C-alpha cells in the first residue's frame, strides 16, 4: 500500500480486471485491482462502473463485496446492457471505476450484527462480514435468501462462521430470521417488546440489503421485536456522488440523497417506508 497522501480523491479511472467468473447463471463475481478502493471501501459503500459503450454514459453502482490487498470484488446480476457488458470482462482488460462512494453501515456499536440479505443484496453484507471478522467486540450472523442457487455462501463463509441460507423452494428469509430468533430467545410479545438484553450481553442489530419488499418485511419484523435495522437502499443514479439529486429518499431528516447520504439508512428514519408502495 502506498504512502502517497493526495489532497484530492482519485476521480474516475480505469481499474484492471483480475478475474471475472459466473457463479451461477447470470450472477457474476468480478475482481478488480484498485489500491484506493481496496484500502478504503467500508461495508455497504459502493463503486460506480462505467460501460465502454459511448452511448451509455450513466453510472452502474455496485456494492463492494470483498477487499483484499490491492484488489476488491463485486458480485452482480446480469439485468441489462451494462451488466451484460461487464459479464464479458476478461483479465487484463480495464473498466472505469469511481469510488468508494456513499456512507455504509454503522458498525461502531459493540453488537451482534445480523446480516440479512436477499438476491443481489448480498455483496455489501459479505464485505460487512469481512470487516466484522477482526472485531472482538462484535458478533456476526449471516442470513441469506436466494431464488435458487446459493451462490454467495462460499464467499460469506470465508468471513463468518455462522452463515445460513434459504431458497425459494424452502421459504423466505423471514423464515430464517424466525428460526434464528427462536434459537436466540428473541420473541415479540403482544406489545412488540423484545426480551430484554441480559446484563453484559451484546444487543442485536439487523443489517439488510436486497429487494425492497424483502427489506421492508425484515424491517417490520425487527421493529416488532424492538431491534434496530439499517438498510442499504437502491436508486437509479445520475452521478453516484451527490451532485445531480436524482436519487432522493424522504427521511425524518428531510429529503436526502441515496448515493451521498446513504445508501444505508436506519429504517426508523425512512418516512412511512415500511407501509409505502
Amino acid at each position, binding site marked *: 500500500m502506498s504512502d502517497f497522501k*493526495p*489532497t*484530492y*480523491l*482519485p*476521480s*474516475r*479511472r*480505469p481499474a484492471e480486471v483480475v478475474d471475472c467468473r459466473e457463479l451461477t447463471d447470470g450472477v457474476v463475481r468480478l475482481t478488480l485491482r484498485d489500491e484506493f478502493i481496496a484500502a478504503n471501501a467500508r461495508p455497504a459503500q459502493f463503486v460506480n462502473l*462505467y460501460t*465502454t459503450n*459511448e*452511448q*451509455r*454514459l*450513466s*453510472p452502474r453502482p455496485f456494492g463492494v463485496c470483498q477487499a483484499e490487498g490491492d484488489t476488491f470484488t463485486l458480485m452482480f446480476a446480469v439485468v441489462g446492457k451494462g451488466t451484460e457488458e461487464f459479464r464479458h470482462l476478461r483479465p487484463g*482488460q*480495464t473498466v*472505469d471505476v*469511481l469510488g468508494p462512494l456513499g456512507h455504509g453501515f454503522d458498525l461502531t456499536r459493540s453488537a451482534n450484527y445480523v446480516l440479512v440479505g436477499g438476491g443481489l443484496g448480498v455483496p455489501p453484507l459479505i464485505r460487512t462480514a469481512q470487516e466484522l471478522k477482526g472485531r472482538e467486540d462484535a458478533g456476526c450472523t449471516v442470513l441469506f435468501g436466494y431464488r435458487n442457487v446459493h451462490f454467495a455462501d462460499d464467499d460469506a463463509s470465508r468471513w463468518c462462521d455462522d452463515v445460513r441460507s434459504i431458497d425459494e423452494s424452502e421459504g423466505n428469509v423471514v423464515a430464517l430470521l424466525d428460526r434464528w430468533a427462536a434459537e436466540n430467545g428473541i420473541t415479540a410479545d403482544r406489545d412488540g417488546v423484545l426480551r430484554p438484553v441480559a446484563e453484559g450481553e451484546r444487543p442485536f442489530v439487523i443489517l439488510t440489503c436486497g429487494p425492497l419488499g424483502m427489506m421492508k418485511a425484515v424491517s417490520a419484523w425487527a421493529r416488532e421485536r424492538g431491534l434496530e435495522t439499517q438498510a442499504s437502499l437502491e*436508486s*437509479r*443514479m*445520475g*452521478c453516484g*456522488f*451527490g*451532485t*445531480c*439529486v*436524482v*436519487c*432522493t*429518499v424522504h427521511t425524518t431528516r428531510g*429529503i436526502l440523497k441515496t448515493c*451521498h447520504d446513504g445508501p444505508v439508512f436506519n429504517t426508523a428514519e425512512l418516512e412511512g417506508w415500511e407501509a409505502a408502495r
Partner: protein
Amino acid sequence: MSGTTMTQTAQAATQAAQGQAQGGQQLPCYFDANRTFTWHHKTQVAGVEWKNPVGTASGTFNFDAVRPFYDVSQLGAVSTKGVSPVPWEGNPVPRTAETPAGSVNSVGLQNPGVDDYLVNDLPRLKAAGATVITNVAGHSDDDYAEVVSKLADHESDMLEINVSCPNVSADGLSTGTDPVALKRLVKRLRPLTDKPMIVKLTPNVTDIRPIAEACIEGGADALSMINTFVGMRFDIRTGKPILANITGGVSGPCVHPMALAFVYKTRQAFPEIPIIGIGGISTGEDALEFLYAGANAVEVGSAALADPVAPLRIACELDALLDQRPELAQALEEGRTWQS
C-alpha cells in the same frame, strides 16, 4: 500569459484524456487533480473575468459533492443549482433515465431555497475562491424577483436566470418560450440588482432569435444556452415511462450539435451580447467548437456527472488548444469572440 508549466501539464492532461491506446481499446481518461494549475487564457463574460473559459452548468455542480475531488476555484466559474424563494421538493423518483449519449432527468429544481443558499452555500463557495454564478429558478415573476432581490446584496459574481427548465410548469413549457413574457420578466428583474445578469435559454422553441432579442431588450447582460430538451424513455418490460414525472430534460453529448446551432444563430443575429455556450461538452474540443460558434465561455453539465473532475480536465484541454490559437485566445481575453 506566462510560464510553460501549464502548457506541458495541459498537454499531458490532454494526452491522458485522449487515452493511451492499448490493443485497439482506448484507455479511459484519468485526470489527476493533485497538481498546480496555471491558466494562460482567461475570458470575460459581461465584464466579469473568468480565469479560463470553462464553468460548470447549473444542476450538475454541487460543492459538497465535488470538493473532495478538485479545487473548484480553478474553474472559470461555477453555476449553482437553481435557487428558488422557498425550498422546493422536486419530482418523485425515478428522476433519471439513460438515453443514447445522454440522459433525461426530472429533478424538478429541488433545492433548499434562497435563505438556505445564502447561509450554507454561497459563503462557502466564495471562501473556497470560486467565481460564483447563482442560478435563479422560479414558478412566477414574483418568485424570480424575490430571489434576485435577496441575492442583490450578497457576494455572487453573476446571476443566471433560468427561464427554461422544462420540468416545473405543467406541460414542460416556460417563460423562456414567450418573448413577451420574457421581456417583461427581465425588465422587472433588471433594476433589482447591479450584478451582471445572464438569462439562460431553453432550446424548446421554434426560433431562438426573438427570444434572445427579448432578453437583450429587457436588459440582460449575457445569455447562456442551452438548457435541456424535452424527452422521455419507456421501460419495455412494463410499457410505462421510466421517469415518475413522465417527461424530463435531455442533456449530454447528444445535444451538442443543436446547442452549437443555437449559439451560432444567436451570435449571427446579435454580435455583441456575451454568450455562454452549454450543451454536450465532454472534451476541450467540444468546448472549442462553442468558442468558434461565437461563445465567450462555456459551461459543462452532464460530463461532470460521469466524472466529477471533468470540468477541470476540459479546462486544461481547452487551455492547451487555445495555446495553438492565439487569435481566438486574444479575442476572448478582450471580451470579444471568434465571430465578432
